[in-house]
């Protein structure tokens, strides 16, 4: 544009310079010299203008360059932004598309639910008992019986922090002997450190396996308890006191050792005569205890896991307590539990010696049981429909032999033990398990063969069927409330059938 203007001006003045001499006659025209000077001045002015314009052009060119540069940079930044955004969108998309991991979901769900410290579990069951009572025991009334029972044992677990747990079980039963409610257990469990848990309150006797780990309805493979833990308990079924317990691995994975030591209120008996029943802490028939007992139990699991030899548990227990303020009960026992694949076996032996007041002979008792069960899970009978095989595979046939030897049995206890079914009125029993009610089970030398057939719907839902054959041996005495002893004489060979549907929840 500057050049154009300059060129225009040059043409104009050039033309003027050519035209002027063509009119020399004009008298008012300036002299030639003046004209020339004026032209020169204007040419100089034009030169200065041109110089200025060139500088402006240079400046503008520089600015255009800078702008072009900036533009380039912006383009690059924009490009990068676009690539980044696309990548980010793609990641977000995959995240949105992918389901949350179980932990993420679990965590989120836990948060949604809030802090839960409270759980209700337990067991419930319905039972039918038929008992064919062949003969009397000590001239007591006998009669074949059949009855239905229901039992509900809710358990509450409350865990306010990760090192304290409260657990409590209330046992309720309804049947021909009436409705019964009992507090089975209620204790606090405190994790003091890795190898020590303190348990305080009312608990199942940690002696042997039976009371503590086998008595719940859905855990016990049979409907009834083995004789030494049922109607003729050798050691007290429960205790109020404090336990210290813990376990540790001593070798390879699976090789564990554990201990439980406890002290408590001590044993109670229904009376001070020979053969009186041991009672549970919550059905204290008479309070002879002066608050002293001490017990210990040790278990060892010698088989390493990776050898796949199954799991073997060997246990030993002792329980000693003062009763009647000066006399002592001492007891000990050994037990085992072994399972591999579909086979499961267990057994216990226990002995108790009770010092007696008033010059009576000491009250000695022995008890034992062995049992075995085999899940037919692997069974495949040829030529029968698959569905039938499916049912058969849920069956577990069982057999148990149990017995008790005791010097005497109190006739008071016999008179009180009238019912069949789920505990309730039984002297000294925690009503956690069924009893067949046969008088034969109260004989001083009771023996029982129990055959079982369980149908497992789920790991803790089972329909159990049991057939009991009572085979008491002769011997022993019956003891009156005043301590008069009469020989036991003939004992009845009763039969009983029990069927129970039970759920552990």
């Amino acid at each position, binding site marked *: 544009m500057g050049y154009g203007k300059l060129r225009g001006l040059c043409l104009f003045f050039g033309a003027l310079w050519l035209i002027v001499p063509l009119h020399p006659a004009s008298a008012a025209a300036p002299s030639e010299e003046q004209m020339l000077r004026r032209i020169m001045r204007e040419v100089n002015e034009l030169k200065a203008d041109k110089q200025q314009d060139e500088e402006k052009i240079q400046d503008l060119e520089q600015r255009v360059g800078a702008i072009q540069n900036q533009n380039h940079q912006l383009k690059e930044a924009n490009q990068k932004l676009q690539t980044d955004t696309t990548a980010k969108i793609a990641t977000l998309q995959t995240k949105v598309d992918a389901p949350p991991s179980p932990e993420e979901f679990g965590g989120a769900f836990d948060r949604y639910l809030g802090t839960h410290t409270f759980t209700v579990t337990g067991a419930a069951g319905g039972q039918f008992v038929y008992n064919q009572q062949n003969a009397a025991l000590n001239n007591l009334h006998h009669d074949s019986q059949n009855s239905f029972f229901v039992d509900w044992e809710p358990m509450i677990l409350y865990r306010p922090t990760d090192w304290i747990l409260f657990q409590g079980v209330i046992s309720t039963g309804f049947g021909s002997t009436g409705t019964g409610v009992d507090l089975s257990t209620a204790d606090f469990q405190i994790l003091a450190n890795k190898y020590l848990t303190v348990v305080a309150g009312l608990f199942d006797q940690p002696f042997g396996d039976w009371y503590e780990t086998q008595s719940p309805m859905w855990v016990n493979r049979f409907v009834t308890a083995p004789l030494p833990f049922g109607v003729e308990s050798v050691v007290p079924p429960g205790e109020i006191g404090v336990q210290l317990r813990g376990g540790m691995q001593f070798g390879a994975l699976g090789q564990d050792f554990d201990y439980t030591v406890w002290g408590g209120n001590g044993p109670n008996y229904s009376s001070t005569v020979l053969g009186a029943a041991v009672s549970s802490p919550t059905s204290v028939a008479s309070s002879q205890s002066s608050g002293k007992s001490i017990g210990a139990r040790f278990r060892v699991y010698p088989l390493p896991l990776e050898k796949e030899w199954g799991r073997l548990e060997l246990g030993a227990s002792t329980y000693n307590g003062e009763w009647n303020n000066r006399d002592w009960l001492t007891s000990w026992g050994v037990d085992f539990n072994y399972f591999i694949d579909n086979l499961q076996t267990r057994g216990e032996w226990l002995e108790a010696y009770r010092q007696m007041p008033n010059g009576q002979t000491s009250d000695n008792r022995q008890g034992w049981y062995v049992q075995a069960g085999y899940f037919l899970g692997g069974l495949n009978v040829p030529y029968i429909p698959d569905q039938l095989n499916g049912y058969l595979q849920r069956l577990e046939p069982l057999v148990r032999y149990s017995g008790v030897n005791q010097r005497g049995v109190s006739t008071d206890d016999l008179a009180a033990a009238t019912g069949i079914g789920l505990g309730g009125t039984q002297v000294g029993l925690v009503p956690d398990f069924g009893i067949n009610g046969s008088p034969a089970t109260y004989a001083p030398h009771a023996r029982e063969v129990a055959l079982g057939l369980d149908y497992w719907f789920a*790991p803790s839902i089972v329909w159990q069927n049991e057939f009991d054959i009572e085979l008491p041996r002769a011997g022993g005495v019956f003891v009156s409330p005043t301590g008069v002893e009469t020989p036991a004489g003939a004992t009845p060979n009763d039969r009983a059938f029990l069927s129970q549907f039970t759920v552990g929840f």
Partner: protein
Amino acid sequence: MKRILAAIVLATLAIGYAGVPVSAQENLSAAEHRRLFREGAKLWPVYCNTCHNARPGSEKAPYEWDQIMMHMRTLGNIPPDDANAILVYLKSR
């Protein structure tokens, strides 16, 4: 009698004291979680079958397992590391 009991309490506390947290479940790294899960999967069919049929993880919510495992750990005197691995396994099923 009281002295025997006190001695047992003190001895157990002394032997047992390790000053370690009793349950360290929170904030596990992914690798640690996988290791515990695998160990728990090995232990569950054996340890949880000792007294009764093994109950599967799907039966209970994770928060319920926190409580039940503490109960089972006490009943079975299960070594704490094993109980922890089983808990991780049960909560993830």
